[in-house]
């Protein structure tokens, strides 16, 4: 197992060098640079733009910038300087990472807590009204674009006044009790989390239903029933255990997807997450910040896949990792 993990980690090393390399190249190919917003402002003197161009090496070819960045990243774990944020990249990402993390966590928990039971219910009562209603909800969740759902949620919050129209906490947060603070944050989180969870929820539910249906037709279940096992044990212990494998793989992929999915929800619903920082960096062509965020996405994707493989090995004794 240990050698397997080590080998997998060694395999990803080249990726960690190549992703930034291509990012630098692509940003260089796109017209303009991070100073463009200032270039059009008459009140910013030309000397300032020239000095900043030299200071941040924007007058140098992209591969030299990549080399300089790589040196700093490898030797000092320094991910570079965000010109548009006037700060090193690491704190810019760190301060938002936590917000996106709790949003993604809540969304994931919602997805799994609702999707798995509903998927099982749908499969065991195939073609019943319960199944049809669940399927209808799933198709709705899959087919409504995230933007639209986010806008609907925002409208709902504005019209009813039941939920805040954005942000992570109230203005009076600091004067609240401990319990009040938790409640306040949850109150702000619930709508974005539901929107973020919607499409994943539908996917998981349909996946669970499908793979459980496959298992339900298997001979070993007939054997189990013939042995006199109760229906709960037959489904819960045998069928679901076998049907869950594809979901674990999906979970691995979803880790990196949560970050990109959150971009949309964060922007529409004014949520102070990392996604917004990344999108702003992309539009501003803030090189190092884009590189760092892509790198993080890559790491999450790799880690998610590795985690899924390990979880599979634990959940399914037939799988051996070498």
């Amino acid at each position, binding site marked *: 197992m240990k050698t397997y993990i080590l080998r997998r980690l060694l395999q990803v090393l080249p990726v960690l060098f190549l992703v930034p390399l291509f990012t630098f190249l692509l940003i260089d190919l796109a017209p303009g640079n991070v100073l*463009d917003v200032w*270039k059009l402002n008459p009140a910013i*003197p030309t000397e*300032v733009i020239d000095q900043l161009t030299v*200071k941040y090496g924007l007058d140098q070819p992209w591969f030299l910038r990549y080399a300089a960045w790589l040196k700093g990243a490898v030797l000092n774990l320094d991910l570079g300087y965000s010109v548009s944020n006037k700060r090193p990249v690491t704190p810019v990402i760190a301060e938002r990472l936590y*917000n996106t993390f709790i949003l993604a966590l809540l969304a994931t928990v919602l997805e799994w807590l609702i999707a798995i039971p509903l998927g099982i219910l749908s499969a065991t009562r195939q073609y019943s009204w319960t199944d049809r209603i669940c399927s209808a909800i799933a198709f709705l969740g899959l087919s409504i674009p995230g933007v639209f759902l986010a806008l609907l949620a925002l409208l709902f919050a504005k019209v009813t006044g039941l939920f805040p*129209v954005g942000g992570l906490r109230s203005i009076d947060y600091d004067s609240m009790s401990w319990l009040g603070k938790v409640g306040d944050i949850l109150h702000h989180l619930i709508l974005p989390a539901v929107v973020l969870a919607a499409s994943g929820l539908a996917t998981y539910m349909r996946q669970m239903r499908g793979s459980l249906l496959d298992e339900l037709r298997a001979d070993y279940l007939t054997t189990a029933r013939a042995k006199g096992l109760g229906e709960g044990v037959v489904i819960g212990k045998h069928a679901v255990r076998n049907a869950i494998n594809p979901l674990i793989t999906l979970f691995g992929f979803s880790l990196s997807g949560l970050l990109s999915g959150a971009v949309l929800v964060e922007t529409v619903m004014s949520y*102070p997450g990392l996604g917004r920082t990344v999108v702003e960096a992309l*539009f501003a*062509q803030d090189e190092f910040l884009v590189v760092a965020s892509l790198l993080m996405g890559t790491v999450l994707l790799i880690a998610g896949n590795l985690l899924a493989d390990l979880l599979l090995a634990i959940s399914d004794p037939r799988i051996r990792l070498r």
Partner: protein
Amino acid sequence: MMRIVLSLVAAFTLLSFSGKAFSEDIDFDIATGIEIGKPGGRIILAALGDPKTFNPVTANESSSSDVIQHIYEGLISYHLEKKKIVPVLASSWEHSDDFLTWTFHLRKGALWNDGTPLTADDVIFSLDVIYDDQVINPARSFLEVKGQKFQYRKVDDRTVEIKLPAVYGPFERSIATSLVIIPKHKLEEAWKKGQLTEALNVDTPPKDVVGTGPFRLKQYLSGESVVLEKNPLYWRKDEAGNRLPYLDEIILLNVPDLAAMDVAFEAGKTDSHGISPDKYKRFKDQEQKGNFTIYELGVDLGENHLWFNQNTGTNPQTHQPFVPPHKLAWFTHVEFRKAISHCINREGIIRNVFRGRAEAIYGPISPANTEWYNPDIPKFEYDLDAARRILDSLQFIDRNGDGIREDPQGNPIEFTFITNRENGIRERMGNIIQESFKEAGLNGRMKLVDFNTLVTAIADSFDYEACLLGLTGSDYPLSGLNVYRSSGRTHSWFPNQKTPATEWEAKVDQLIEDFLATPDDAAQKRIWRDIQMQYAENQPMAWLVNSKVYLAVRNKFGNMRPRVVRPRDVWNADEIFIKE
């Protein structure tokens, strides 16, 4: 134990002593002509984006200056209502008869918000920092005359003398807008280590963000909000003797875009909101229910315009001219540009794009800038017949009957104007302009490009024919010299000229030099009337329309006097209070 008690006592006496000494000795500025308010409450504003720095010297984006302006101050400032320079940290100042020596007397007893007295050393330090080549800052170029730095020295603890190498017309206005006083006792160390740019970034603990302004930083949460709280040591009082500011807090809520800003105001989360003309009715209908008033502040300072690339240079790599010679000949012809201005259906744009909430403009300074605008400039209004007559007289005639005119050499008059796709309003203006071009027999087509592509085209590669864009304006022409001067970077139609390409541009350059050498206000204004005349007569760009500016503010605020110059609502934040 005894030592601790003793030092505590010492610290206590020191504190009470210094507190007493300074609070009684402050040379307060009395705010006259304002409604007497009462302390307490807060105002909540929306802000697009986070502040990037709390350093007033290196800040060059509005998301930072929106916060910083309440924390730091200059020696003097320009009061738009009184139309004169008013004292801030300098309670008085005078100049020699030749306008070369200026003496500033610091406000007696003025304190930094950590309790340290403000002295002449702080002013000297601020100038040292601005003039330091290692500190990249936008202020320096406005604090130089003929490329030379000012000379300055401390006379005594409360007096600073600034000597100019030559007369500098806009000296007072430059000091007012560009010289921000920063605390030597907090920043000297970082500056000496060459880290001033990095010092005072948004990770700095609030108590270390030390200014003299009416508010101080209380809390900053990235992506969420900035909370500013009352500075109890502020140097202003009302006529009843209440110390300003009245408000306890100013809160700037971070919202990602304009749509979210609309929603935040409608949901009651914010107290003040700029309304774009197309949304006027939506908000007007809610005035009663939302308990707010929409103020009409007149037309915007910023402008929309269309210009042709008149750059006579060649691409250094391909050695091809930036603009094909036959097209350059059209673009540099003033009559052609007048015809283009006659093609701009400003009324149509106002009606269809701005729902009637805009005004046609014909020159480089917005009519909103009442002090500097010249109403007598010639106006080349929408008049397709006039446009056709001019084009005919230039021998630009449709010779082959395809509906498009050709120049005498037979080249069809066709060109592409670019604009950025992110801006829906410009796209709609462009559509209307295209139509009129076609009616006049010109094949002028709009092309939508990304913002960065546009900036590269107009500022670096010069590979474009025409461009539709808007620039932000200001209330004082000095900050726009980059536009007006032929050597300017935002002299869009032909930037960075080594020597003026045309006679009229040379004339304008000379007028600007005259302005910079004239301390007399009336003379300055005469000069700018001439500059506007030159611009309007030569039409280097066709000016389009300026939208009207609307600001919605909740009714609960007293001394709320919105204006078109930013910040529109809280420019007098220390005077604003909550009624009842």
